[in-house]
Each structure stands twice: as C-alpha cells, then as structure tokens.
C-alpha cells in the first residue's frame, strides 16, 4: 500500500522553544494511526503542520500527492482534500447544525441548495442526529457536537479525492 502521508525529518521552533526535532513517520492508505505523547510534546503541532496551519522550519511533508513544504502548493486544493476535526469542534455558533454541514458544499464545491440539503441530511442520519438538524450548536451536548463535526468530515468524503484525518485527543488517520 502506498503511503498517503509522508513526514520526513521535520523540525519546528516557537521562538526559543524547540517543539519538534527530527520527526519522521509515514501513514499507509487504509490504516488508522494514533499519535500518543505527553501534553506539550508536539502532537497537535505535528498534525497542524500536515494541513499547513503551521509551517515547519525544516524537513518535508507530503500528503495525498501534495508537497506541503514545497513551493507551488495549491493550498485551497489541499484544504479540500484533507479533513480535520478540531479538539473544540469549531462549529459555527450562528448557524444551525444543517447549515454548518451545508456551508462548505455550497460555497466551496458550488453544490445547489436542494442537493446539498439532501447530502447533509444523509450524513446527519449516519451519525444519528437527523432530528437535531435545526438546532444550534449551543443546544447540543459536547458529544453531539463532536458527531456533527464528524458528519461534516463524512460530507467532505462525498467529494472526490477526499482524505480523512481526525485530530482529537487520540489522533486518527485514514483515507480513501
């Protein structure tokens, strides 16, 4: 199985604090990876570097055919291909659950409203929250918010060439 994520000898400093030093690993297609470490050991930083939320000081990162550390990176396409669920879920509080899930398909993939509505309801059904479609995130419990965030991820899978990656206390990695 070809590697879908290749991290090669990355290092990162925040000011004078060295957070990552010579970190390397690969993730093969279809596998699930958990990154475990003490708090403050650089787990989140490494994962943020994969989606280019942070830049590394040295080393190479390749994700699903994108050379993240190289020049000429199509950031927009990278973001469409990599899905992230944040620790604090980061749902948009002023939108209903349904509107949250429909946002990216409508704006990024330019899907039509009825079609986006249909797919969104389908993924909500998958995570068992179809009855909460018209609720706002503040009305849901933490666990339910997490499921909505996962539904958003599954929604992204519906688009072609999608790669799924979950950042959580336990990090998951997986792809199609």
């Amino acid at each position, binding site marked *: 199985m070809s590697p879908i994520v290749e991290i090669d000898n990355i290092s990162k400093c925040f000011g004078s604090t060295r957070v990552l030093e010579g970190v390397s690993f690969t993730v093969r297609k279809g596998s699930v990876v958990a990154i475990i470490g003490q708090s403050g050991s650089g787990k989140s930083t490494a994962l943020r570097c994969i989606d280019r*939320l942070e830049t590394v000081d040295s080393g190479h990162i390749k994700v699903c055919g994108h050379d993240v550390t190289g020049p000429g990176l199509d950031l927009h396409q990278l973001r469409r291909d990599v899905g992230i669920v944040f620790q604090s879920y*980061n*749902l*948009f*509080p002023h939108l*209903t659950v349904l509107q949250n899930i429909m946002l*990216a398909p409508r704006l*990024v993939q330019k899907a039509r409203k009825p079609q986006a509505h249909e797919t969104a309801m389908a993924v909500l059904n998958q995570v068992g929250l179809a009855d909460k479609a018209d609720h706002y995130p*503040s009305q849901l419990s933490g666990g339910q918010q997490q499921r909505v965030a996962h539904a958003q991820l599954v929604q992204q899978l519906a688009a072609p060439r999608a790669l799924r990656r979950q950042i959580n206390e336990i990090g998951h990695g997986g792809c199609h």
Partner: protein
Amino acid sequence: MLLLSAANTTLNYAFDFSAPLAYAPDLLAGAWTTLTLSLASTFFGFLLGVLCAIANTKGTRWMARCAGAYIEVIRNTPLLVQVFIVYFGLSSLGWQVGAFTAATVALVVNVGAYTSEIVRAGIESIPKGQLEAAECIGLSRWQTLLHVVLPPAIERVYPALTSQYVLLMLASSICSQISAEELTAVANRIQSDTYRSVETYLIVAVAYLLMSLLMRGLFWLLARLAFPRRRRLGTPL
C-alpha cells in the same frame, strides 16, 4: 397641565401651545424628513463602516492606515463643521448639491467612522479557531468574512450599533444649520413666526423622543428578522 397652570401664575409667561400646534402639518413633514434622512444615512453609513472595518482588520497596512486616519479626523471634529465642509465645500468646488443630499453625505461619512470602530471590535471578538475551521473546510478569505466572521460580529455589536444610529437621528438636527427642512429647521421657522419658542421646542423635544422610540422599535424588528438564532434561543452569542 397642573404644572403649566402653576407656571402660568408664578412666571411672566403664558403658555400657549395652540400657535405652534397650528403648524402640525409642517411639523409632521419635518419629522418625516428627519426620519428619511436618518434611515438613509444609517443604511449607507453602515455599509461604509463595515467596509472600513474590513480594511482596518483584514486590509493591507496602507489601507488600515487610511481607514484609521479617516476615523480619527471624523471623531475629533464636530459634526457641524463636517456638514459645513460638505455643503459649502462641495458647491465651492463646482458641485451643486441640495441641502438634503449634502446632509446625507455628511451624516454617512460621520456615522461610517463610528460604525467602523464598533464593527471592528465585533470582528476582533471572533475567536481565531473559527477562522481556522473556515480555512480548513476550504472557504476563501472573502467567503470566510461574509459567512463566518461578519454575521456573528454584527450580532454581537448590534446594541452598540443601534444606539449609535439613534444618536445619529438626534444629531440630524444639526442639518437645520444648512437649511435642510428637517424637524429642528421647521421648529426654528415656527418659533420665529409665532414667538412661542418654549412651546415649539417642547413639542419638538417630545417629537424626537417619540422618534427615538420608533427607531428602537424598528431596529428590534430588524434584529428578529436578521438574527434567527437570537430570536429562537434568546441568548447572546
């Protein structure tokens, strides 16, 4: 009424409200002009203010500096002088503008600066995590601004904005100084015709209070339409 009759006996002044009230149609016309002037200035001032706030927070350094300078000049000079500059200045530069247009332009420029500061505070209160989440689902910078940043930002600062626009309506009285036929200008005319100054201005003061209530009511209605989350949950963002 009791106070007034007491006043009648102790003061050398007989209150007579019938004289200014005979001008009721003019007063109503003046009030209508005030309302249309205020609402027009509110709408365009809001748009200008939002654009300025975006320039200040998300624009280049040069854009932010320009916006900052504009805001400082407006906030540190009186509205009266701004109105004079727009009205007299534009016509001396060759542009013939009516009093209502000049008044609207001056009010828009003025309230735009105050709106910009208020909206900027709202934009800066949006947590960075929201921006990152928007980035990660692939929204462009403009899409993020329009769908993720501005709606909650404006909802948050809505009370401050509405107070500012009610103040604007009161400040529109300044346009009487360039003969825009709004309520205070009508009052000035009536009192010089009837010599019933105190009564006229008391009536007009009450009229402004009523218009303030009307404007607050309109903004409350607008909030219920624009912020469905607030209407349904009743909690602030």
